[in-house]
């Protein structure tokens, strides 16, 4: 402790009265020179500093409270480290002496601080970094232990600061380094507790009761639903080795981290030194981490999930790695498809749970198209695809669909009741199951309006009253 204080003092003196790097030997490796840390946004990971000796490292992080996307059409007033959720990835080397500058944006409503689990010292730096809006604080620490560590805000009420997005990872690379790999990615799992139901468009707000009950509406990778899906998926080539730096902040749930279609060759358990091999799923505690390595042998999409699986398919805990390259049928035949792992949409497939219906007000064509697009993308696009063309053999198209467009109920009955069994769409046969969608009449009217007036369809406005009538008729 005394030594820590001395180090701190020496560093501060050096800071104020000159720039000469510190020459102290003591119990530790000599510190030579200094550098400014390069920070990255998920899923990027900074390159290894590659230094042969410890350095003084300047880390500058800015706290910003800002509204960003939580899901399509859903916004949230996030509290962030570096204007992103999760916060910037910090990479240093064992023995480095970090001079940490925390700035709190003048427009912030609250003070913030930082507790880095990589710090040996009181509060992980929390008290030393308590920063009022429009101020900057500074403290220093020596990275004594290597490993992958969480950092988070620890200002009271701590749970709320974490629940609103204030966390990230700091990797203290062992002095001997890690074996080289081809690609490295940064993945962070977290929960959001909103008053509004999953996917409900608009500005969502924090719900303390749900947080206390540990019942999140959202469980996501990298700060929002679909942050690393589709176009934003991580990309690797066949034959490459991948290292994932995975953190889980919670704030409540333990992650059953799994990658659909891969076996982890190596797991650095809990982000430490102990390595386990040939692992399917690894538990990552709230406030903990794991480093995961595997080689991508065959092309296709790897889906990262929390295998506590309702979180994945109903709350957003999905991410993807696209592996590109040549098929290797000896490793994998290619017949099986991963479509069964695609999200079935946000709507809970419930039979009994009745929601009270809000009073209905009919909307304009324009409004219905706008709302419908968002609702479609959240609830339908996973199967029917964003372009409405479905997936051949599995999910029928909606675009220019004779089956849909000729229906008298305009499709409302399908959405309300679900559909199973053989059907023929545009001359092709499909035999699948579409679940009931738990959506309000108003929402269904918007979705149908959007579907019936997109991708070449010309179906006109669908009113909520029509949907209501279909629902009444189908009871």
């Amino acid at each position: 402790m005394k030594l820590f204080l001395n180090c701190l003092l020496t560093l501060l003196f050096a800071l104020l009265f000159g720039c000469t790097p510190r020459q102290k030997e003591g119990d530790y490796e000599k510190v030579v020179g200094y550098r400014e840390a390069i920070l990255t946004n998920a899923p990027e990971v900074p390159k290894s500093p590659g230094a042969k000796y410890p350095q003084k490292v300047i880390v500058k992080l800015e706290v910003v409270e800002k509204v960003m996307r939580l899901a399509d059409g859903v916004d949230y007033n996030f509290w962030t480290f570096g204007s992103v959720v999760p916060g910037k990835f910090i990479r240093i080397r064992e023995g480095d002496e970090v001079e940490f500058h925390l700035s709190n944006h003048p427009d912030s409503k609250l003070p913030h601080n930082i507790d880095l689990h990589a710090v040996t010292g009181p509060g992980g730096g929390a008290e030393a970094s308590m920063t009022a809006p429009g101020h900057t604080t500074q403290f220093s620490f020596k990275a004594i232990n290597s490993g992958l560590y969480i950092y988070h805000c620890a200002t009271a009420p701590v749970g709320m600061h974490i629940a609103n997005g204030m966390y990230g990872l700091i990797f203290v690379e062992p002095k001997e380094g890690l074996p080289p790999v081809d690609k490295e990615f940064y993945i962070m799992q977290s929960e959001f507790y909103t008053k509004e139901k999953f996917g409900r468009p608009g500005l969502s707000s924090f719900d303390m009761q749900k947080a206390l009950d540990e019942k999140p509406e959202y469980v996501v990778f990298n700060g929002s639903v679909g942050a690393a899906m589709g176009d934003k998926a991580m990309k690797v080539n066949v034959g490459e080795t991948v290292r994932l730096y995975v953190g889980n902040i919670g704030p409540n749930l333990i992650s059953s981290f799994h990658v659909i279609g891969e076996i982890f060759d190596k797991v650095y358990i809990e982000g430490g030194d102990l390595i386990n091999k040939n692992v399917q799923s690894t538990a990552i505690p709230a406030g903990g981490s794991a480093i995961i390595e595997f080689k991508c042998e065959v092309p296709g999409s790897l889906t990262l999930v929390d295998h506590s699986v309702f979180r994945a398919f109903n709350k957003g805990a999905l991410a993807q790695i696209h592996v590109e390259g040549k098929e290797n049928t000896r490793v994998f035949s290619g017949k099986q498809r991963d479509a069964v792992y695609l999200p079935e949409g946000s709507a809970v497939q419930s039979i009994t749970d009745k929601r009270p219906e809000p009073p209905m007000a009919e909307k304009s064509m324009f409004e219905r198209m706008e709302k419908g697009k968002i609702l479609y993308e959240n609830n339908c696009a996973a199967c029917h695809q964003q372009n409405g063309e479905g997936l051949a053999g599995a999910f029928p198209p909606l675009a220019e669909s004779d089956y849909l467009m000729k229906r008298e109920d305009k499709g409302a009955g399908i959405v309300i009741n679900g559909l199973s069994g053989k059907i023929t769409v545009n001359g092709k046969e499909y035999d699948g199951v579409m679940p009931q969608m738990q959506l309000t009449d108003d929402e269904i009217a918007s979705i149908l309006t959007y579907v019936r007036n997109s991708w070449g369809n010309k179906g006109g406005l669908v009113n909520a009253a029509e949907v209501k009538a279909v629902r009444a008729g189908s009871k």
Partner: protein
Amino acid sequence: MKRYFNIYKLTILFAFITAFTFACNADKKAASEETVNAVTVNNKETAGESLYQLEGEWHSQNGDTLQLAELNGKIPVVSMIFTRCGFACPRIVADIKNIEKQIPAEKKDSVVFVLVSFDSERDNPDKLKEFATEMKLDDKWILLHGGEQEVRELSMLLNVKYKKQPDGSFAHSNGITLLDANGAIAAHVEGLGTDPEPIVSKMKEL
């Protein structure tokens, strides 16, 4: 108008420098804007930061009425206490006595020790005199009583936290502050039994 605009720009620039300049390229002005714990603060022109700008009257243990500005030219070592304090305050006095032993010879005449009481209600000059006798404090020690408002303002300047308890005692943080000849803060240590080195070494420079 134009002049104000320029000042405004300067202020913004200054704020910018303060907020974003660190380490090697921090200029001296910016450094003096920051609060640095347990580290001596650079001083050249410190009159603008003088605590003696604080208005209000104080009473010493000898019954004198004085203003802080009368300490001008001295080198005060300041702390805040209350005489009924059973635990921390006697230790703070001991910590200051420890500093007293280390005063460089050439500064012996100018250094004074100032104890300001939190207890406006009960620590009148007589009570302070009693405390001084009990703790064997000589005439280098100035014990001060002030009104609630004055004490609160001074605590803000010294960054001392305190709160009156329902039983009339005070919960408070413990700090020792060194002022320069202008009355600006030159050094500060926090806590009980803390190594007074920053204060002693700064004293030599003043």
